[in-house]
Structures are given as structure tokens and as C-alpha cells.
């Protein structure tokens, strides 16, 4: 039981068993801590955009670690390699674990992936909380009535459009970046008629390379939980077999992440100057 009895000492933090993620602290403790983060950063900057950037950087660090933690614990060392998959991961798993709430289940908008993948075309209704931007193909939005971090914060008028949700935007960016989907993520207030406090929208704009690239013949092979020696051998095999499988002369790149001391995950993707799932 947590808090009772002595904890066994581990020499290496990586050997310590991972907690189940059920431990909780009070909301006010987190709110106090977050307010100190914002106040400290206010003393270090001269303008609003710099403050947002610093909050986002703090969130980025959190996001990168959250990705590793959740992939290992909840998804059995598998990581999403498709765009919809990672968005779904952020929208449901990450949000539920971090903020404790389930956003309404989303259905996809009509998506024009182009050459990305024909079988992803699904004609559906626009979702409440995960939406695709209508002007640009590469924009997605997660919207929430009130972000957890903004609950006890009021923005003075002279700070304009500053949003402490930049921290959450940073978390999302960290998760996406770690999973190999570089994106620019920002948080915006969206005033809603009839409500006093505006809704917050996290706007995700994916990098150019995802949408300008012809990717129909892309193959992505994902393997997980291998020991080091066998990983090496497997990588060698795939390096040889890769061009044969994809019928292209493409370099097979590989990268691995190390969630625990003895497990190695390997992600292999054809190297059209694009590495998916790069980590470490």
C-alpha cells in the first residue's frame, strides 16, 4: 500500500517497478505548483510570446515522458505510427491519464488524405472535441470547455491573448514529436455565446512533410520488446530485406527507444528522408 511501510531500495531508478498510475494528489497541490511555474517564468521574460514559449517548453518535456510512459504501460510497448492513431492516442489515452477526463468520443471528419492511405477515408460527422480544420488539410483541433491548468487562472486584460494552456499545447507537441509527428501546437481561447468563460482549443498543425509527400507505398514495420542482440540481428535482416519488400531502393532506417533497461523497441521505416517513430 502506498505510504505504508518501507519502500525497497533500488540502486538504479530504471529497476524500480513502474507504478500503476493510480496515485493521486489534490488538485490544489497541482494548481499551486502550476501557478509557481507561471510566476517564475513571468520573472524571466519580457513579453507574452516568450512566456508562452517557455511554458510550452516545460510542457514539451512532460509530453515526451508521458509518451514513453503510456506506450510502455498501457499499450504494451507499441506506439502509433499512423496519424489518426496518434491523434486518437492523444485525444483519449493521454487526456484521460493526465487530466482524468474522457473527452467525448470522436468520430472523424471527412479526411482528404490524398495519397496517404485510401483505406482511411471515412465519411463521418464532425466531432465535438477532435476536429479537423476546414481551411487547411494539416490542422486538427482538440477543444475543451476548460483546461485543468486554467481553472484557477484569470488573465489580466493587458496580457491580451495569452493562454496558460500553452503548457498543455507543449505536452501535446511533446507527445507528437516523440512519436515522430512533428507539429506546431498552440492553445487558443474561443469565446462561446452564452458562456462566460471561453472554450479552449488546442490547435495542431502538422509539419509540411506529411502532406506533401506521396506515401502510398510506405511500409512501416513495428517490432517491440526485443533484447539487444536479437534486435541487432533483426535490423540486419531488415536492412537486407527492406528494399525487396518495398520494391524500391530505399534505405531502411532504424531507431529504437529504451523504455526499460532491458527492453528495446525497434521501429523500422523506409527512409524517404523521413523517419517515423524516431526516438531516444
Amino acid at each position, binding site marked *: 500500500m502506498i505510504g505504508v511501510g518501507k519502500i525497497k531500495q533500488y540502486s538504479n531508478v530504471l529497476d524500480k517497478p513502474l507504478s500503476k498510475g493510480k496515485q493521486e494528489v*489534490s488538485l490544489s497541490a*497541482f494548481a499551486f505548483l502550476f501557478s509557481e511555474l507561471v510566476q517564475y517564468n513571468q520573472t524571466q521574460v519580457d513579453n507574452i510570446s516568450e512566456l508562452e514559449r517557455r511554458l510550452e517548453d516545460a510542457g514539451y*518535456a512532460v509530453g515526451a515522458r508521458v509518451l514513453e510512459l503510456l506506450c510502455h504501460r498501457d499499450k504494451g510497448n507499441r506506439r502509433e505510427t499512423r496519424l489518426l492513431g496518434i491523434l486518437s492516442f492523444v485525444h483519449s489515452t493521454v487526456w484521460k491519464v493526465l487530466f482524468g477526463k474522457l473527452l467525448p468520443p470522436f468520430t472523424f471528419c471527412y479526411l482528404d488524405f490524398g495519397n496517404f492511405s485510401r483505406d482511411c477515408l471515412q465519411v463521418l460527422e464532425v466531432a465535438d472535441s477532435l476536429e479537423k480544420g476546414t481551411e487547411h488539410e494539416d490542422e486538427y483541433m482538440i477543444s475543451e470547455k476548460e483546461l485543468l491548468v486554467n481553472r484557477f487562472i484569470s488573465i489580466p486584460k493587458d496580457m491580451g491573448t495569452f493562454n496558460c494552456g500553452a503548457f498543455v499545447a507543449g505536452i501535446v507537441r511533446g507527445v507528437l514529436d516523440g512519436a515522430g509527428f512533428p507539429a506546431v501546437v498552440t492553445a487558443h481561447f474561443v469565446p462561446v455565446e452564452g458562456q462566460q468563460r471561453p472554450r479552449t482549443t488546442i490547435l495542431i498543425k502538422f509539419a509540411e512533410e506529411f502532406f506533401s509527400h506521396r506515401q502510398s507505398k510506405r511500409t512501416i514495420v513495428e517490432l517491440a520488446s526485443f533484447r539487444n542482440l536479437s534486435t541487432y540481428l533483426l535490423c540486419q535482416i531488415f536492412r537486407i530485406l527492406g528494399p525487396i519488400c518495398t520494391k524500391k531502393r530505399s534505405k531502411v532506417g532504424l531507431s529504437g527507444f529504451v523504455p526499460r533497461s532491458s527492453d528495446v523497441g525497434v521501429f523500422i521505416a523506409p527512409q524517404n528522408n523521413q523517419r517515423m517513430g524516431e526516438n531516444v
Partner: protein
Amino acid sequence: MAPVAPRSGDAIFANVERVNAELFTLTYGAIVRQLLTDLEEVEEVNKQLDQMGYNIGIRLIDEFLAKSNVSRCVDFKETAEVIAKVGFKMFLGVTASVTNWDADGTCCSIVLEDNPLVDFVELPDTCQGLYYCNILSGVIRGALEMTLNASLCLVFAKRLCCAVNITNSSLLSTRVSIRYLLRQNVVSMKTEVTWLRDMLRGDDAFELQVKLLKQVPEEYPYKDDE
């Protein structure tokens, strides 16, 4: 108003809104990392963490007193017990224990075996002098120093809530209650909080030494005959 019995830490924790401890842990880690990048000197980071904790503590005590209905503590011993059993449980969800009282009763150790701030954390060789959880020492220091002010505010707030119109008699009764409170020796405590044991440095638990330096009873601000 009839005095309400103080609530146990578990009961309060079950009633407050809670968030995932990992978000808390990771946010704290991000703060420490930012401080290390900005300040670079480990001693400076320790001081800054303590200062941040102090800022939190002076506001945290309000919430603590409001939620826990702790009326007053007779002496420092009781105060330390209340911090360990109720305070830590209410905010961090873990229970601490109080040990190692010295002969005067002015110095004790609060021992934490489980600390949500340090999950996943390992100190690198470059940061060996860092007290990673120094924010906790600041929180305790700030909270104890502001005890008196917080109690006064609470009394005012309760009176204002009860009174429909603030008439002279209500104001008088408010002053009477403050006087009563002061005569009960609610004090502001200046303390010094240091780390004795730190799990990140290889010890088996976290131990904070809380040493009472001074108890400062506030002067009653109004004359009696006003």
C-alpha cells in the same frame, strides 16, 4: 457557531478534487529542469525552490485551515503532528510520520517514505548537491509563518458569512472573537526546515527536520474600548 471537529486527512483527501500524480510529478520535474537550465548553480536552484515553496505555503495554509477545521494547536508538537498526518495527506495523498523530538519539543523530524515528487527521478552526477524536494521545506516554512494571518482571515470570513447585515454589533463580535483567538495564543511560527535524509541521495526515506526558531504572537490591532 459550534466548533466543528477536525477532519482526518483521509476524509478530506477523499473529498477534494484530485489529479493524476504523474502529471504533478512531471510538472515538478519540468520546473526543476527549467531552474537548472536558467540558474545553473545547484545552490541557487535550492534557494529558488525554497522560495517557490514559501510562496505556495503562505497561500496553502488558508486552504488547509479551511478544509481541515483544525481550530488551534496547543503547542508545536501538535502542530507537527497535524502537518504530517493531515497536511501531507490532504495535498499529496501520502502520510508522513513525526519522530525524533528533542528535549525542548522545538525540533522534530518529519519522515516521508513515499513522495510523489520523486517518481521516475534520478539525480545525475552534475547535480549531486541538489535538494530535489526543497519545495516541500519552503511550503512548511511558509505555512507555519502565516498560520496566524490565515486563522484571522478565516474567522472574518466565517463571521461575514453568518451576518446578513454587518452592523456594529457584528463588528464588535468579530473583534471579540479575534481577541479570544489571540488569548488562545494562536501564533505565527518562524521555523527552519532542513533535509536530513534524501532518497535521491541513497538514503532510505525522506526526512525533514523542522526546528522552531520563534513563536511570534501578533499584537491585537484594535484598542479594547473602541
